[in-house]
Each structure stands twice: as C-alpha cells, then as structure tokens.
C-alpha cells in the first residue's frame, strides 16, 4: 500500500507539467536542484562529517559538463554522467587526505577546496573561459522546460532513492555508527575510512551531476555564479529546516523554503530576504529538529 502510494506520487510528479504553468515548473525544477544538493549534504552529514564543499563539487560538475559539451562535443545528456564521474574522481583523490580530518577541520578544508576549484576555474582561462566563463549556444533539449523538468525530476528521484537505500541497508548501520562513536564502530568491525570515502565520493558525484544539470539548463558557467556560496548555504538551510538525518526532511525543507522565497518576493518586493532570514531563525528556534523531525517526534511520543 505504502509503495503503491509512493508510485502514484512519482507518476503525478511526472505528469505535473500538464497541469501547471511554465513558471511553477521552473520553480520546481530549481527546488529539485537544491533538494538534491540538500540530500547529498545530509547523506554526508549522517557520517558525522560537516561538509562545506558542496558548492565546490557543484561547480566542478558544472564546468566539467560545459567543457565536455563545448570542447569534446559530448552529448549534453552524457555530459551529466561525465560531470558526476569527474567530481567523483576528484573526490576520490582528495578523500585520501581530507577524510582524515574531523569536525571544523573537515568543514574548513572542504570549504577551502571549493575556493581552490574556483580559483582554478578563474585562472585556467584557456580551458574554462576564465572570469568571463563559458557559454553554450543552446541549452539541453533546446531549452524545452518540460523535458528539463523531467530530467531534473529523474535525477532528484534517483538521489532520493539512493538516500533511502542508505537508510535501509547495511550502509546506514555503518555511517550511523561512525557518526556516533568512531572507536566503538571500528572495534565492531566497521571499516571507517572505506565508508567515509564511499559516501564522500558518492555525494560528490551527486553534487557534480546536479551542477551539470544546472549548467546545462542555463547553458553557461561563470566562476562567481557557478561556485556561489548559495549552493552551500541554501541546501544546508533546507536540510536543517526540514530535518536532518532523513530523506523526507531535506525534501520538505527544500519545498517549503523554495516556495516561501518565491511567495515572499510577491508580497514584499523590497527586503523579502529579511522575512526569509526570520523564517530560518524562528523555525530552528521553535522546531529544533526541523519540520520532519518534530513531526516524527510528536508521533513517537503519542505512541
């Protein structure tokens, strides 16, 4: 029954473009972009590692994809896989070093790596177009927003599926154990480094793929906007507002904050971000486990 409902919801998501206008489809597409980032961030967080590097891998994927299409004439659709692979490769190479770091040291190093990626993007101008960035003359599917929506939806659903697999298989036991107590975990036979590396590489690949989607949708990359801190801070906010350590939490957070920011803009053209900031603050103050976490807790308490 439950799976049947989920299937229905998925089908409805795919049929949505036939019922709503281009604007909402566009907004939903970018919500799903952020949703996938939020989930990938949360998946890393489930191991206890706070990554500030998601904007970096996002940008890396975006650049890889645009360069693949522009310089190597790879099909835009395949370029997304190329981007995911490239981000994964970089993560694999860096993982050997950064995954020995913990807490704020891991956080700041991943953040610094994002900046390093951006500096390379800006200074290797022969390959990347330098500060001006790189432009494709045509966006993916010739700019057909419904097809783009379907593509982004498929990727987002895949990410959700991966996140759920994380929650339902032995992976969950490994990464939660690492988060709770690394020493107890390794004395119970968990190969900590292997799982950290696995999650780091996988989430980086997701971030790379999502960056590629974004870049292909708008057909350009540019250091400042592609590596923008927004691609770190917004997904983080979404996951925390929705509720961390779950799949549903970041989804709820992304939808709520994504729609809220569009709506606020309408009723308050100037300074709507003040209200947005207040929403963040108030949600966390009064729902410290996030929306989903609070609901789950209430239900658990009633039982």
């Amino acid at each position, binding site marked *: 029954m439950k799976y049947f409902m989920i299937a229905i919801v998925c089908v409805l998501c795919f049929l949505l473009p036939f019922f709503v206008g281009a604007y909402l489809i566009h907004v939903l597409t970018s919500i799903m972009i952020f949703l996938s980032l939020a989930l990938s961030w949360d998946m890393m967080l489930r191991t206890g590692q706070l990554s500030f590097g998601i904007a970096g891998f996002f940008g890396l994927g975006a650049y890889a994809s645009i360069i693949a299409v522009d310089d190597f004439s790879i099909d835009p659709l395949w370029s997304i896989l190329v981007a995911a692979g490239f981000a994964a490769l970089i993560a694999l190479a860096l993982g050997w070093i950064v995954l020995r770091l913990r807490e704020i*040291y891991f956080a700041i*190093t991943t953040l610094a790596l994002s900046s390093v990626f951006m500096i390379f993007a800006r200074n290797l101008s022969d390959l990347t177009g330098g500060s001006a960035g790189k432009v494709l003359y045509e966006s993916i599917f010739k700019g057909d927003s419904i097809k783009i929506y379907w593509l982004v939806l498929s990727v987002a659903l895949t990410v959700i599926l991966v996140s759920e697999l994380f929650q339902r298989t032995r992976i969950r036991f490994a990464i939660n154990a690492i988060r709770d107590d690394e020493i107890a975990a390794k004395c119970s036979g968990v190969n900590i480094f292997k799982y950290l590396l696995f999650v780091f590489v996988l989430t980086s690949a997701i971030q790379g793929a999502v960056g590629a989607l974004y870049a292909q949708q708008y057909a350009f990359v540019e250091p400042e906007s592609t590596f923008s801190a927004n691609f770190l801070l917004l997904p*983080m906010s979404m996951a925390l507002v929705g509720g961390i350590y779950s799949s549903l939490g970041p989804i709820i957070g992304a939808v709520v904050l994504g729609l809220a920011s569009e709506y606020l803009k309408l009723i308050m053209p100037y300074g709507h971000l003040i209200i947005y900031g207040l929403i963040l603050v108030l949600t966390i*103050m009064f729902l410290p486990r996030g929306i989903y976490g609070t609901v789950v807790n209430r239900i658990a308490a009633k039982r």
Partner: protein
Amino acid sequence: MKRNFVGYVVLAIALFLIALLRPYAFFYGVQRGSLYGLVALPLALILGIVGLLNLAHGEFLTLSLYMTYLLFTKWGMDPLVSPAVTVPLLLAFGFVVYKLVIERSLKTHHLNLLLLTFGVSIVMVESLNIWWTSRPRNIYVPYASTSVNIFGVYVGGYEFLYTIAVVLVLTGLLLFLKKTRLGQATYAVGQNPKGAAIVGINVKFVYAFVFSLAAGLVALAGALLSVRSSIFPQAGGPFTMKSFSLTAMAGLGNLPGIVLAGIVLGIAEEFVKSIPGYTGWADLVFFVVLIAAIVFRAFGRREG
C-alpha cells in the same frame, strides 16, 4: 616539541627572506595579517568557549562600520574615538542576539546554532541594505593615508594600528583568561560547562558574556577598519570565513596561533601579489597554506 621548534625556525627564516627581498610585501602582509587576526580573535573566542561558529560575525563588523560612520557624519566623532560608543553598543547588541536567539537553542544539535547565526546574518545584511541601500559609504580622515619611512622603505603607516591593536587585544585576552576570575571561569566553561556549573560558575552568564565581549571586540576592529574600507551591507561578510580559516589553521583554543596564522597568510598573500603576472593566484596561496597547515597537523596524530 622539537618538530614545532624546527617549524618555527623555518617560518622565521622564510619571513626574514621575504622581508629582505620584498619589504613592501612583508610590511603590508604584517598589516593585513594583523587585521585578519584582530577580526578572527572574537570569532575564535565564541567558537572555543560556546562551541558555536558565528556566521553573523562579519555582519557584526558591518554593523560597527555603519555605527562609526553614523557617529562620524552626524556628530563629527573621530573614528578612533568612536569605540567609546560603538564598543558598548555592540556589546549590548551581542547580548541581545545571544539572549533572543542563541540561548534557548544551546542544547539542540550544534548545527542549529550555525543555521541560526546564518539567519541572523541574512536579516542583518538585508536590514542594513533597506536602511542604507547598497551604495558604499566612506569616512575620510587625512591621517588614514599617511606614510612612514622604515629603513628606507616608504609604506602606509595607518595600518600598523591593526598590529598594535591585535597585540594589545591578544595580550589582554590572554591575561584575562589566565589571571582573572572571570577569565578562568570562561576558560573552564569552554572545557566543561557542566563541571563549571558545579563549582559555582554561572554558565549562561559566561556564554552571554563571551558573546557580548566578542561583539565588543569586533566593534573595536570595525572602528579601526572604518577609515580604510568602504562601508556597505556586505562589507564584513567575507571576514567570517577568513576568521574561521585562521581559527582552524591555528587549532581550536590557540589564540596566539590565530594572530601568527593571520600574519603568515597575510605575508604569503602579499608576496604572491607582488610578483607581476601572478597576482591572480594570491588567493590560491591563502587556501593552500591553510589546507597544508590543517592536514599537516592532522597527520601528526598517529592512531590505529
């Protein structure tokens, strides 16, 4: 111990060589680095004691810049005098933010605090933007652009105030933490809040105090910076991550290390900038030195 010593010697030689080869880069690096350190110290204090990374740190700095500006334009108060007013104001502001937003969330997941301060920073930036618009403001005082002659090298003099200030603030903080009762209480709370409570320390008060003190120190930095920097809603923002970087590079709880890290990074940056054709890579040096320092320290630990 021995390895540390060798490291410091190598560092000292490198800095000396830079001073010899590129005196401008050396002096400017010291100045900039002192500024970074001055702004980073309060952030490190909050991070070390309360265990909270204050993402609104830079916005506190912005606020103090605007306050100094206001005092200067409305009442003609000299920016070097204005800390007398802005420090207490920021102290109070820090206290209010702590009481309203932070205190009740201290017991929840530590990431919540991160997000709360992020929310505070958005609200602050946007409020300043509504009030003052995005147009930069400036304070002009002639003494901010005077030059001094050091061993035949003709460099800007004003920014040495950063160096003086950071030395004073650091010494003051260290003395405070070591020698005073409240300082020892602060240090104790940073290590074990529960243990602090059972020896009679008012932990909530210490937290509020640290938060306010940090905000007050930011106001001091803001006053010094105000005459050299443009004042606009995002002016302080980039300092948050720079301060965080320095804190991580020095290691938590190592206040003198932050100033040292600031100066090393400042000199490294200025050194690269002074090489024609490589100016654009200065940021890379900053991050590479940062990552190298953190990783090097992490690999110093040997564990199974």
